[in-house]
């Protein structure tokens, strides 16, 4: 015993003498050379402390090099050097104090120090205190990021020591914030923690919640009486907050009640006691109901060959004798109270932001539906025909974008080319379809539907034959990558913003064409009364052709837009066709405002249903379709119905 004491004292003195010397780095390393060579997480700390005590200016360089395996030892005399280039022959040695070249050595005479990952982590956290006061702003920011990623109790004091001297306001704010987060996690002082927690009220960043949620973690416990020391979140009673079975199991786990005989254990006991085809006097073959098995087991229990069942009364008595409660793992009730309030205020704000984010999502979905459906709405409105091949015009547009990208390597330029090109190609396809097929099926809308379906499957298969079945990428230019981020919750990708803008543009353009141009006037006239329009000198044939082309052309542009955030496949169009139909039907035929209303409603509704049941988009779509079917009951002609003679029947 006495010897151990002396040894401890001696060690203490040596440690003191190391620090008292404030020697140079090489000396300190030499003194601990065994530990330096074979460092471990525990042995490294005193060495690092000693190094810090030395107040040498080159400590951070030493640690960085050591960490990145650039610290080598010369075997002949045991001195340490930096080695920048270990492949050179002979290897150049650099002095660890002055960073100057201190001669060369052969590789066989040198040994590389390989600190393990634990040691490197300790070094990194020591290095942080140097980086935090580094001249270089980037170094300081990096240090903060490192702390954020892997915070440690020791960082708290370091941070507090550096905040006051920080010249850059932005970094200072960040430091203060980080200091508060660390305070909540590591500080021993209750008031400081409560202050820090209260400060974060309404802060929606994820890191705050990541720090606060563990404080509010609870554990269900049981005891005869609730101990004074417990920080109780909530008292539970059986049936209210905890089920009967769970409560009893908790008692069993805490050795407060005997284990119940489970069905499995009972059956195992029965099997173990089979003798001559009988169990406790019962035929094995007769044990094919629960009741019979229980009887057989009780027969065994009465002979004391198996433990008896725990009766319901005994179980209830055990439950009644104990209280159940939910206790915070965090002991300090002031801290948990503050955390609860702060989390509540944060959740309120998060909820509000989620609604805003939902709004953005719905808006972007609505713009996609609008783009996909508007062409359909125009042709349906003017000609009264449903074009089942509309989805394939979307697909044609998407493939046009893909081909344009293959020919023009610059993504921005190819997109600029692809948009009008997609319009032209789809316009051409639309006009061809109108001339060759639809014109001959006028006044037979149902047959048009089927004929265009034939076109649809033929075009889809053609696309498959030409481009293959695998998905083709349509890459967006770099300036459309990424997202506009307001905070952790509200964000929207630039592509979706672009699609929204595109949808707005086309909405405005179509409104202009239909209401302010000669073509629009004629289109409206043909929509309302083709015979009258034709007697006024309008050629309905030409108007039909042009509208069909226009509707198809817009579908082509929608195809480029849809292809940008998905992938181009031959099924691209058919994925949107049913939604497009419903948009048109819900919105009301032949009316741009109606399509806008329909798209907004369907897009919004789908997002809202998804919000309530986020794991299941299939259910969301199912419910939405059912809703639409019911909606049609009340407004069979859509939200915005044509009135008067224009309504046809």
């Amino acid at each position, binding site marked *: 015993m006495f010897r151990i004491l002396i040894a401890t004292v001696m060690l203490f003195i040596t440690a003191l003498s190391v620090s008292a010397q404030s020697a140079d780095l090489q000396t300190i390393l030499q003194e601990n050379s065994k530990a330096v060579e074979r460092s471990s997480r525990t042995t490294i700390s005193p060495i690092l402390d000693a190094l810090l005590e030395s107040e040498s200016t080159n400590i951070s360089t030493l640690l960085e090099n050591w960490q990145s395996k650039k610290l080598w030892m010369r075997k002949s005399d045991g001195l340490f050097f930096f080695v920048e280039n270990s492949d050179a022959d002979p290897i150049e040695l650099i002095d660890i104090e002055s960073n100057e070249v201190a001669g060369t050595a052969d590789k066989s005479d040198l040994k590389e120090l390989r600190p393990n990952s634990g040691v490197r982590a300790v070094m990194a956290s020591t290095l942080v205190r140097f980086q935090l006061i580094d001249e270089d702003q980037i170094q300081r920011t990096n240090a903060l990021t490192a702390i954020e990623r892997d915070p440690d109790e020791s960082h708290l004091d370091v941070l507090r020591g550096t905040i006051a001297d920080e010249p850059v306001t932005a970094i200072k704010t960040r430091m203060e914030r980080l200091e508060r987060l660390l305070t909540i996690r590591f500080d021993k002082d209750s008031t400081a923690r409560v202050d820090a927690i209260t400060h974060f009220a309404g802060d929606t960043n994820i890191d705050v919640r990541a720090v606060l949620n563990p404080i509010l973690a609870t554990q269900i416990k049981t005891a005869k009486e609730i101990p004074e020391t417990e920080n109780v979140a909530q008292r539970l009673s059986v049936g209210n907050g905890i089920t009967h079975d769970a409560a009893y199991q908790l008692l069993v786990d805490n050795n407060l009640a005997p284990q119940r005989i489970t069905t499995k254990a009972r059956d195992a006991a029965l099997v173990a006691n089979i003798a001559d085809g009988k169990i406790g006097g019962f035929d*094995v073959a007769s044990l094919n109901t629960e009741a019979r*098995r229980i009887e057989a087991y009780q027969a065994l229990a009465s002979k004391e060959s198996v433990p008896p069942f725990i009766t319901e009364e005994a179980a209830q008595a055990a439950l009644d004798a104990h209280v159940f409660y939910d206790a915070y793992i965090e002991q300090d009730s002031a801290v948990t109270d503050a955390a609860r309030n702060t989390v509540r205020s944060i959740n309120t704000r998060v909820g509000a932001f989620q609604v805003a984010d939902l709004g953005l999502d719905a808006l972007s979905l609505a713009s996609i539906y609008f783009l996909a459906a508007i062409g359909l709405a125009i042709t349906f409105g003017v000609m009264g025909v449903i074009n089942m091949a509309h989805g394939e015009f979307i697909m044609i547009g998407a493939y046009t974008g893909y081909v344009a990208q293959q020919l023009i390597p610059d993504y921005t330029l190819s997109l600029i080319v692809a948009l009008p090109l997609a319009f032209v190609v789809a316009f051409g396809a639309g006009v061809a379809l109108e001339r060759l097929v639809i014109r001959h099926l006028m006044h*037979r809308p149902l047959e048009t539907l089927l004929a265009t379906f034939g*076109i649809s*499957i033929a075009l889809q298969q053609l696309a498959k034959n030409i481009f293959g079945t695998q998905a083709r990428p349509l890459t967006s230019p770099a300036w459309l990558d990424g997202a506009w981020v307001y905070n952790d919750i509200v964000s929207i990708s630039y592509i979706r913003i672009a699609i929204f803008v595109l949808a707005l543009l086309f909405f405005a353009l179509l409104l202009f064409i239909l209401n302010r141009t000669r073509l629009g006037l004629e289109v409206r006239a043909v929509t309302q009364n083709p015979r009258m329009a034709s007697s006024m000198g309008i050629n309905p044939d030409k108007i039909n052709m042009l509208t069909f082309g226009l509707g198809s052309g817009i579908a082509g542009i929608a195809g480029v837009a849809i292809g940008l955030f998905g992938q181009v496949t031959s099924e691209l169009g058919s994925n949107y066709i*049913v939604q497009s139909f419903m948009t048109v*039907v819900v919105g009301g035929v032949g009316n741009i405002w109606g399509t806008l209303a329909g798209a907004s409603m369907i897009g919004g509704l789908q997002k809202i249903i998804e919000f309530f049941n986020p794991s299941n988009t299939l259910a969301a779509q199912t419910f939405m*379709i059912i809703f*639409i079917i019911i909606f049609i009951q009340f407004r069979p002609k859509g939200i915005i119905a044509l009135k008067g003679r224009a309504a046809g029947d």
Partner: protein
Amino acid sequence: MERSFLIRQPSVLIFIGLLALFTIGATILSEGFGLGLISTSFIKTLGKTLCLCLIALAMDLVWGYCGILSLGHFAFFGLGGYMIGMWLMYARTEQIVINSLANAPLPPTSGEIRDAIGSQIFGVVGGSEIPTIWTFAHSFPIQLTLVVLVPGLLALVFGWLAFRSRVTGVYLSILTQAMTLALALYLFQNDSGLRGNNGLSGLQNIPGASNVSQDTISIWFLWASALALGLGYLFAAWLVSGKFGSVIRAIRDDETRVRYLGYSVEAYKLVVFVITAVIAAIAGALYYPQAGIINPAEIAPIASIYLAVWVAIGGRGRLYGAIIGAAFVSLISSWFTSGQVPDVPLGFYTVKWVDWWLVLLGFGFVLVTLYAPKGLGGLFDRLVRRQDA
């Protein structure tokens, strides 16, 4: 006294005769009962084709005679298949489970058997509980009743809602399409209780007939399908020949005028819609045991559109037209997509029919709509009329 509809429509008897000849012929040539010239898988294809003819007949009634272009009748077909599939799968799994538990030291309780069936059937979707909709799956008669009841009820509710608000024409087509899409999407979910996109499988094994070879079972189903088609045809011919038939044809031609004449158009439409849904369901219940597997993709809107295509190609408004269309297109489709058709080398490009068949079908369909609006059945009519003259 009015003459029987059979005498007024000689084509009915001709059809029944041909169907009987076909069935007997196929049986004689089959592996199960006869010379073995036709493989069992082809017998199954023939049986399935008969079921498709039956649903095409229903489609012809609702579209060709009543003018309702339903793009959702495959939903009823699929539901019928699901209902019978539930029994087939449950009963068969029960047998397997009982056999495997027979060697356990304790005889199994009914609860244990249920648990084992549950984890057998629903293990694939990560569950072991038997959902409530499977309550009657153990009982063949109840499940057989449900084959008719469930699709019938769906058609009744949907049709009542749709016709009541006077949704007509293309609107109604889109609405029926939405219905079948909604049903397919619902069934695609794993927690729908019908095994999500895995669907029901192993339906070709008939519980209680494990000793009977597939060769024989395929013949049974061929007969059953032929019988169902024959009865369905008789029923449809009877339905369209009387006053009821006249009214629904009138609704097709001018709905408003029929309404002004005092007929309850909505009621007639609803009756036709529900009857055809039930016929479709029966067809489905016969089809899927021959196909062996059913999954929600079968109900996707495209299937119902193809159905309309068959009827249009065959010639709608005449019952044999629907049969011709369904049989012709589905058999020729399976021929072209089977890879048995020789490729056409053009020197610079080889036309593979597996790839090009759909293109041909699509454009062929456009041509039929444009130039033969009465379909193949129309050509048939023209032939008969020439003989008369």
